């Protein structure tokens, strides 16, 4: 008997080929290629100005490529697959004079709540909380977005993206401007979302210890992909020096984990 059952192949959610991009004559991405498979948590690490945020922006069509190609879910026409993508930018530059409440902001992402202006709060809240039962947003709904703490704001931005029920979640430095306890909560939230929704997560981060704990695959970027692999493969002094251009020493945590830190 001849068994011809096909070997399961992980489907590529993101495929980037030889991506080049420059701003005002300065090359930011110089031939970046990468592949991200379904269900992974992938971290992009690298020093400031290494092109991490730019790469994320390219993935959602916010930057015009000089050359190269990007496919999301096997599709080169990015706008057509954007409904399957959640994107959380680094900052929300909201003017304090604009008192958009958390309820109103979240309502913008769902078809059933897009007429929030005419709807009762009860109806809007029912839709929001039904779709985001585990995010603990009830106490935030009445607050103005511009008055949230860094951690609360990140939680709301992630919730906004989740309301679109994405298969791919892109997070640009989700803990920027968040205090230490808040950071831990955000990472736990990301891990929980990944586990619960089985979605692919790509995050830009400076926190190498978090990357070590959470990511299933790491790309170290500095204009080009300097190295890639599992956190264990990439988190060594040699690979990190290639990305950061400085010496980075792994240290031993009490739980015998190697948590590298750049300094």
């Amino acid at each position, binding site marked *: 008997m001849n068994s011809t059952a096909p070997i399961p192949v992980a489907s590529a959610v993101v495929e980037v080929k030889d991506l080049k991009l420059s701003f005002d004559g300065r090359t930011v991405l110089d031939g970046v290629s990468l592949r991200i498979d379904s269900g992974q948590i992938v971290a992009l690490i690298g020093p400031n100005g290494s092109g991490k945020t730019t790469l994320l922006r390219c993935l959602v069509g*916010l930057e015009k490529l000089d050359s190269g190609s990007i496919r999301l879910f096997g599709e080169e026409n990015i706008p057509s697959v954007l409904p399957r993508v959640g*994107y959380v930018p680094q900052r*929300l530059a909201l003017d304090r*004079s604009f008192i958009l409440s958390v*309820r109103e902001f979240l*309502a*913008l992402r769902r078809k059933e709540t897009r007429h*929030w202006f005419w709807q009762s709060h009860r109806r809007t809240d029912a839709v929001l909380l039904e779709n985001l039962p585990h995010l603990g947003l009830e106490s935030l709904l009445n607050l*103005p977005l511009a008055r949230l703490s860094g951690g609360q704001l990140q939680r709301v931005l992630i919730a906004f993206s989740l309301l679109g029920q994405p298969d791919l979640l892109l997070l640009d430095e989700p803990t920027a401007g968040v205090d230490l306890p808040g950071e831990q909560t955000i990472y736990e939230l990301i891990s929980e979302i990944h586990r619960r929704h089985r979605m692919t997560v790509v995050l830009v981060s400076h926190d190498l210890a978090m990357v070590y704990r959470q990511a299933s695959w790491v790309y170290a970027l500095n204009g080009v992909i300097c190295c890639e692999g599992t956190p264990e493969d990439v988190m060594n002094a040699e690979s990190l020096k290639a990305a950061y251009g400085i010496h980075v020493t792994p240290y031993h945590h009490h739980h015998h984990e190697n948590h590298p830190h750049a300094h």
Partner: protein
Amino acid sequence: MLTEAYMQRALVAALLLAPLCAFLGVFVTARRMAFFSDTVSHAALAGIAVGFWLGLSDPTIPMILVGLAVAFAVMWLKQKTDLLTDTIMALLLSGSVSIGIIMLSLLKASHGDIHRFLFGDILAVGPLDLWLAGGLALLVGAGALPRLSDLTLLTAQEEMASVSGVAVVRLNYLFVTALTLTVALSIRLLGIVLVTSLLVVPSAAARNVSRSLRQQIVLSVASGLAGGCGGTLLAYQLDTPCGPTIVLASIAIFLTTLGIKHWPS
């Protein structure tokens, strides 16, 4: 006083334009576009001069066209050059005002005419202005209300709006067009110098006592209506220039809401 035709026209104009300004003003202030509306209103001076040069008794149409040309020039230069937005607007504002003043001086326009457009005049609102204001109110209502969510998201975070499927470029142009037309038509009542205040002050007054965007929009429109209509009536009663009177009425509302905000509970 309401039996006089010019007063009826002025009040209808205030009823149509003040809430429109107040609604757009919520987004103008949040998007930090007050200087943009100032640029467009000042560019109207060149439009008025073109109207006089063409021998038109009512320069509304050239005023609108020049306003739109300047508004789109700001957006185009912002996209195509690395000049700061403020620099672009300052260049276009001062350039168009200078062209307008030189043309008006060559055309020997009377100080009374210039004064009317600079500070607003109840008597200046003509039937054409009313038709245009009515059409604009209908257009903005029909265009903006179904797109309120998109406009709100665009104001909160342009990139998230783009990724969420909002046609960002088209919506930006639509918003700027609505804003330019509203500003150009409101010049009759408020005057070039003060028209931006009808965008900014009601929205700021509403902001003092609102806890959500819905409240801010509703209260801003109400405050715009009260300031616009109240100011027009006061200008008639006191025989004062219309624009400054509307502005002072709006500021009085702003101060009242500021008092309410800080009133010890």
